[in-house]
């Protein structure tokens, strides 16, 4: 994720002051386009806050963060406890990470250190194809095929459950992880490996004691980023986990994630109602979590980066 500013602009000096008008206009237009990214991010944050603001006065915020019941559709006494949704999100995301991390790491090491160039030429596009599959396809597969397999093996309480979502999310996390982690391992200079091999270490010992420690920041960042994507994923969990909003920690029962709650509830919510603003508040919480995860990944990359 290193972003080298001005890599291609080695020969630009400070000569904008005497630019002809045409050049100046072009530069202004380009700068304006660049500002769209900052404006877009500000708009996301601003819109979430504006949308959630009325909820702060109409519902009890402490009850929102500590409440264990999410039942916003109740006509008289709607309950907006976000905990069941939060726990649902964390169950499927951590479950997915638990499956995806060993497999993704194994894949990355194999790809970076073991595989021959010919096998690599087939395997890398395969990973890209997997990363390109739309999430609704994964969701559909989980709903129709994977849930039947799980029902056959585990005898779950509900056919659509957290385990179903976690396995499917793991399949989506692996390509993100592998692409980034393999890059990090490839960035470790060959001379380090050669030194290790010259001292008599086997290739596996070299991987374990040289390559992995040297690329650790990149590998950890890859895991954190993939986890962030899992937390924000909507369609897969929406279709796979059954969307029951009870608070529990059983992987064989149905859960609802924060993303799924937003996607489903907006289908029936009245515009500008209390429920509507609470959903923006859920969105704000979700955004804050993924934002923090992204910053963490960025920090890990910068703070622990080894430069060779």
């Amino acid at each position, binding site marked *: 994720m290193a*972003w080298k500013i001005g890599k291609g602009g080695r020969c630009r000096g400070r000569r904008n002051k005497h630019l002809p008008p045409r*050049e100046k206009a072009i530069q202004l237009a380009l700068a304006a386009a660049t500002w769209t*990214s900052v404006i877009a991010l500000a708009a996301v944050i601003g819109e979430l806050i504006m949308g959630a603001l009325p909820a702060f006065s109409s519902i009890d915020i402490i009850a929102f963060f500590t409440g264990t019941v999410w039942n916003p559709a109740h006509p008289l006494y709607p309950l907006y406890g976000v905990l069941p949704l939060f726990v649902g999100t964390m169950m499927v995301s951590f479950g997915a990470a638990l499956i995806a991390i060993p497999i993704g790491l194994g894949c990355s090491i194999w790809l970076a250190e073991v595989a021959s160039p010919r096998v690599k030429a087939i395997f890398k596009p395969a990973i890209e194809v997997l990363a390109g599959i739309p999430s609704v396809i994964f969701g559909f597969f989980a709903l129709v095929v994977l849930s039947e397999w799980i029902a056959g093996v585990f005898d779950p309480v509900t056919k659509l459950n957290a385990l179903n979502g976690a396995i499917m999310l793991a399949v989506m996390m692996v390509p993100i992880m592998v692409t980034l982690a393999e890059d990090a391992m490839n960035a470790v200079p060959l001379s380090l490996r050669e030194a290790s091999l010259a001292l008599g270490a*086997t290739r596996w010992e070299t991987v374990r004691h040289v390559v992995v420690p040297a690329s650790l920041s990149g590998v950890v960042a890859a895991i954190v980023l993939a986890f962030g994507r899992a937390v924000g994923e909507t369609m897969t969990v929406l279709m796979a986990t059954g969307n029951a909003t009870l608070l529990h920690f059983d992987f064989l029962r149905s859960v609802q994630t924060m993303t799924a709650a937003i996607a489903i509830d907006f289908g029936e919510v009245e515009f500008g109602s209390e429920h509507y603003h609470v959903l923006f508040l859920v969105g704000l919480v979700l955004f804050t979590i993924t934002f923090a995860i992204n910053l963490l990944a960025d920090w890990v990359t910068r703070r622990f980066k080894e430069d060779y």
Partner: protein
Amino acid sequence: MLGRKAKEAVAFTLFRGCALLVVLALAVILGYILTGGLERMSVEFLTGMPRRANTQGGILPAIVGTFYLMLIVLAISVPIGVMAAIYLVEYEQSSWMGRVFRLAVYNLAGVPSIVYGLLGLGIFVAYLGFGFSLLSAGLTLSIMTLPLMISSAREAIAAVPGAVREASYALGATKWQTIRHHVLPYALPGIFTGIILSVSRAAGETAPLMLTGVAMSLQRLPDNLFDSFMALPYHVFYMATQSSDLQATRPIQYATALVLLLLVLGMNLFAIVLRKRYRDKYRW
């Protein structure tokens, strides 16, 4: 105890197993969608209007809706993304502003798609009054794909060596002439790859559409930007979870999923091949 060589063999076999497992997962998913989808696939299915609450007929409005969304993304996200990428590589001088832009693009890329849906609902649907329409959804998807567009174009432009620019400057070309005639032509294949990947990402996205007005069933095609529309990914979701008879419409669900998969993967494969040919052509 295992010997050191044996340990290596065990570890590397495990890693190969991991890789095989991933390929297997890909093959199983593609295989199921392909075999399930071919059953219902026909010309009539691709070119017909849905009938009897989507349980019969075709999915033409969904295909056309997704196609229109891709066009809107192409018209908005691509020019802005490429311009921003040019600015970031060629013009941006202050390291402080560069860091702000870098962080903005990086964080935008990590915003969950459903949050973009909330943005579209609040700003395009409600505040700007575009309503639940093709335009609202298209604009939302455009913002969503912008970071991907910027970072891929930026990478392609930054890969053009400085010597090309220096040679152009030495001959007296201005900055924009250098960019226009010497940097962009070399970066174009890479930018094009990024464009295809971004548009295919937009085509497969579902969650933002659910908040910006995708329709469950339409008997006609959208005829202006403020019209309601159907989209392939939402159609897969809707038919698989909410249609009147889930078991009976399963072949339709599979076939719609297959159409979406072929569209998105076809574009991705094209982009991968394009990038490979371009990399083989220019080695700086």
